[in-house]
């Protein structure tokens, strides 16, 4: 172990966001270090996707600051966003384009120079197992492939922060295993934040977990600590349910 503290790649402080009168995110703070995989866990509608949209600049928070690699996202969005790779809940694919065309477009969009696009393209395709389908039209490929193309566009420019919104939804067990292995690899060199409602996913790939419930963070700590948090070890699922129920009881209705 080196004594150097890993670089903080993403830090969000006191994020709040409401849509009309409905407060969706309330006072959420997050921090992500290089070489770390952070899982954002929560029920459907807990505010995971909204948080991720704010972290990637797709939504502006009502309050709070976001810094990507030390660059303020609100003040210098162009610089900050160059360090982000984002896979939204629905992969943002132009279905009429071929895989190569689409990924080259994504690479250029993220600021890769024209001469370096083909290298980046080959690397991303290799990592995501897309080498054989480069010339195929995206719309004709299966859901599993489309999800992998979505991941490939998020990592093609080797960003410091990779934000993945439910990356394994809709995949078969083999594909889930492959994607998890890939995320783990990515987490070693970059830093990954992923949202999920699958506890086994958190257990198998995340270093740290933040539990989001009704727009507030109810737990933050390592995966191993959650496993034994306030109860018997190995009862991850029960702890998750207890934590969210506890916060439900505390929330005045």
């Amino acid at each position: 172990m080196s004594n150097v503290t890993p670089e903080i790649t993403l830090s969000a402080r006191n994020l709040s966001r409401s849509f009309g009168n409905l407060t969706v995110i309330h006072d959420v703070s997050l921090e992500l270090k290089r070489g770390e995989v952070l899982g954002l866990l929560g029920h459907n509608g807990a505010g995971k996707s909204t948080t991720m949209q704010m972290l990637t600049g797709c939504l502006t928070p009502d309050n709070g600051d976001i810094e990507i690699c030390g660059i303020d996202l609100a003040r210098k969005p162009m610089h900050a966003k160059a360090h982000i790779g984002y896979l939204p809940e629905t992969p943002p694919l132009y279905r009429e384009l071929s895989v190569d065309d689409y990924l080259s477009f994504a690479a250029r969009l993220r600021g890769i120079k024209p001469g370096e696009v083909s290298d980046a393209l080959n690397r991303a395709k290799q990592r995501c197992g897309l080498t054989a389908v480069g010339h195929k039209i995206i719309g004709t490929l299966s859901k599993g492939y489309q999800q992998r193309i979505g991941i490939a566009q998020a990592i093609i420019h080797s960003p410091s922060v990779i934000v993945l919104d439910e990356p394994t939804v809709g995949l078969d067990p083999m594909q889930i295993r492959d994607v998890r292995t890939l995320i783990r690899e990515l987490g070693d060199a970059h830093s990954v934040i992923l949202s999920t409602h699958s506890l086994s996913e958190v257990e198998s790939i995340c270093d740290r977990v933040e539990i989001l419930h009704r727009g507030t963070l109810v737990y933050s700590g390592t995966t191993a600590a959650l496993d034994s948090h306030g109860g018997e070890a190995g009862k991850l699922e029960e702890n998750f349910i207890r934590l969210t129920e506890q916060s439900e009881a505390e929330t005045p209705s």
Partner: protein
Amino acid sequence: MIKLIAMRELRSLFVMPSTWFVFAALQFIFAWFFLNALQSFLDFQPQLAQVENAPGVTAILAAPQFNMVALLLMMLVPMFTMRLIAEERRNQTFALLLSSPLSVHQIVLGKFFGLLVFLLALTCSVPLMIYTLAPGTHLDHGLLLGNCIGLLLLTASYVALGLYISSLTTQPIIAAIGAMAVLVGLWLADIAASAADSPWHQVSPFHHFQSFNSGLLDSGDVVFFFVFSASFLLLAMQRIHNNRRYG
């Protein structure tokens, strides 16, 4: 970056079979209209020869041809602008652009110029058809140039308006109907206003195209088209910004 987004728009248009179908159908309509007009010109030519200061072939053939294209564009442009932002939002591909290191004006201008180049490719056959007459007759190049500039500015103003309306909704079909309603509404306001100095004439792009159509290059019309296009492009940028802000 503007060029990159424009190229992506063009690529997406040209890989779709429906684009080629529309392209071919319009070339057929343009050619049919042109040949029809040419035939009637040839039929009337002996009578025209007896008139003093008779209008030339360019005024008789080209001006109505451009006028017809300008009317067709009113229906046609919304079909293409509807996709620009509404479809990206519906298919959730807009997140790719929003999370990339791009400014809002790069996104809007990229889409604007991409579609404008496509529509220019679509309509460039009109002056080319008229130029096929050049070996046999004398053409009024000034009038043709005026019409070409007018058509370019008119197309740009339609695209800017369509782009803005496309940014208001996530349903492409609503964007198409909305843009068409506004364009036809502006046109009707122009032709329905009987008084020559009615302000309704001034708000209609089609009215400003008429002076180009008759070979008149008025700087006031040019300014109108620039202000009209720029306003709607700025509104579209503001709308995308507001979407981020208010969800």
